């Protein structure tokens, strides 16, 4: 892994009315890394993804992607620049077949044909279901379809929002293997939001902790799991 930055989040604040969902967040994302993003419910993880992907404008601050300021670009342009994402609540195109779901984004990248899109379905273990309607898939498969669809954009960064929530133990293990596999196969940078602590600790090289919109810790999984502030933020919520 090089130390080169692929994305820089500078001082990003996001207000929803009076709610400060993100508070002066700074992150340097290294090219090729898997960066874990954790924090209690409502700490701003999804909001950060929404700001990066241009779906919500940042109230303050900037986002640079490969040296270019992408802060005020519209979402479809940001997607085409190479930032793919999944949704915390799955939203496949239910009335379309699995392969058609992937083709929608695949055809934009310009680098993908039907064959490459089918390869992505192989990687995400959905190839047997390519002709089925997306709404027929089970939750684990729908989550994989979200990843497949994002991969079809040939992104350089993939933002994965709780893609393991609601999965069984075995499914989580398979998903972890797939995510590392994808990173290596496609040379991607991945930012991973996950509640399953075991999972995020296993797969991330670096972890970033948000609490009430503020970054409270950043470091290796070991460092973060021993951090006092992090323990309080988590335990404080669990009382």
């Amino acid at each position, binding site marked *: 892994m090089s130390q080169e930055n692929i994305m820089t989040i500078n001082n990003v604040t996001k207000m929803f009315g009076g709610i400060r969902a993100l508070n002066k967040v700074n992150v340097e994302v290294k090219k090729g890394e898997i960066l874990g993003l954790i924090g209690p419910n409502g700490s701003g993880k999804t909001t950060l993804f929404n700001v990066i*992907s241009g*779906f919500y404008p940042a109230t303050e601050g900037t986002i640079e992607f490969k040296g270019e300021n992408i802060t005020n670009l*519209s*979402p*479809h342009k940001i*997607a*085409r620049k190479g930032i793919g*994402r999944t*949704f915390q609540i799955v*939203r*496949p*195109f*239910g*009335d*379309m077949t699995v392969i*058609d*779901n992937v*083709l*929608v*984004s695949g*055809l*934009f*990248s310009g680098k993908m044909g039907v064959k490459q899109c089918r390869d992505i379905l192989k990687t995400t273990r959905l190839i047997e279901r390519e002709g089925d309607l997306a709404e027929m898939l089970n939750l684990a498969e729908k989550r994989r379809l979200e990843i497949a*669809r*994002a991969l*079809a*954009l040939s992104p350089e960064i993939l933002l994965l929002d709780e893609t393991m929530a609601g999965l069984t133990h075995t499914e989580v293990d398979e998903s972890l293997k797939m995510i590392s596999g994808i990173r290596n196969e496609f040379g991607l940078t991945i930012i991973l939001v996950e509640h399953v602590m075991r999972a995020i600790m296993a797969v991330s090289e670096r972890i970033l902790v948000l609490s009430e919109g503020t970054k409270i810790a950043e470091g290796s999984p070991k460092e973060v799991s021993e951090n006092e502030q992090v323990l309080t933020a988590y335990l404080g919520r669990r009382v």
Partner: protein
Amino acid sequence: MSLELLAQTIINGLFIGFLFGLAGMGLTIIFGVMKIINFATGAMIMLGAYVGYWTYTYWPYSAIPGIIVSVGVGFLFGILVYQVLVRRLIGKPLLTTLLVLFGLTSILENSMLNLWSPNPRSIPIDFPTYSYGLISISTSRVFVSIMAIVATILVLAVFKYTTFGRIIRAVIQDKIAATLMGVDVNRVYTLGFSLGVTLTFLAGALLAMVYPFEPFGGLPYALMAFVVVVLGTLGNPVGCLFAGLIIGTVHSFVGSYWTLNMSPAVAYLIMIITFLLRPQGLMGKKE
């Protein structure tokens, strides 16, 4: 009740049903893509008819150029109307859409009145009519039906097999997810609206070959198109075609055995009953 009258009624009904279906498809595609109800459908059907008619007066040898020109003008007109007006209506209250598009209707109708006078026009193409006993089948109606079927198949094929079609379907289902997959929704809206208007114009150009029309004559067709859209399930083009054939046949039966004036009333009664028994339309899934 003679068998000939029955057969003739069904044939006429299916024929006009194709036209209702086409106009309904125009409406339903626009609604499906951007949740806008095109209240200017009636005036656009008539404009399509006039463009076909106008082309024919310049080149009175075949029906084809009129159809092609009408389709082309419809497409460009759709882009223009979207960019100037409809773009600003997205997400606005229904009442705003209603008023703006009624305004557009009024502008179009009065412009047509000025350009082409209030006299009913028709495209006087000489299509032979074949008679079998008391049943007569005019080849113009057959031609128009075939054109409507071809257009429907074309639209469905575009939806199913092309990139543009996949993108439109994606936008219909989840605009936000589509955006974040790299789809430029504004561009899809422009083309979706324009495609809808194109079908509306085509319906007009085709009906002009069979029925007389005049500047303010669009409303009855538009009303039927609305019924067809509801009956065929909002946003479902295939449903529209079926619903078109059903409503066309009903229309024809009411005309043959009662009085044509009552046809819209009966069509709306069917729509209301459908609403009560099957709110999702004939083709819709439960819930």
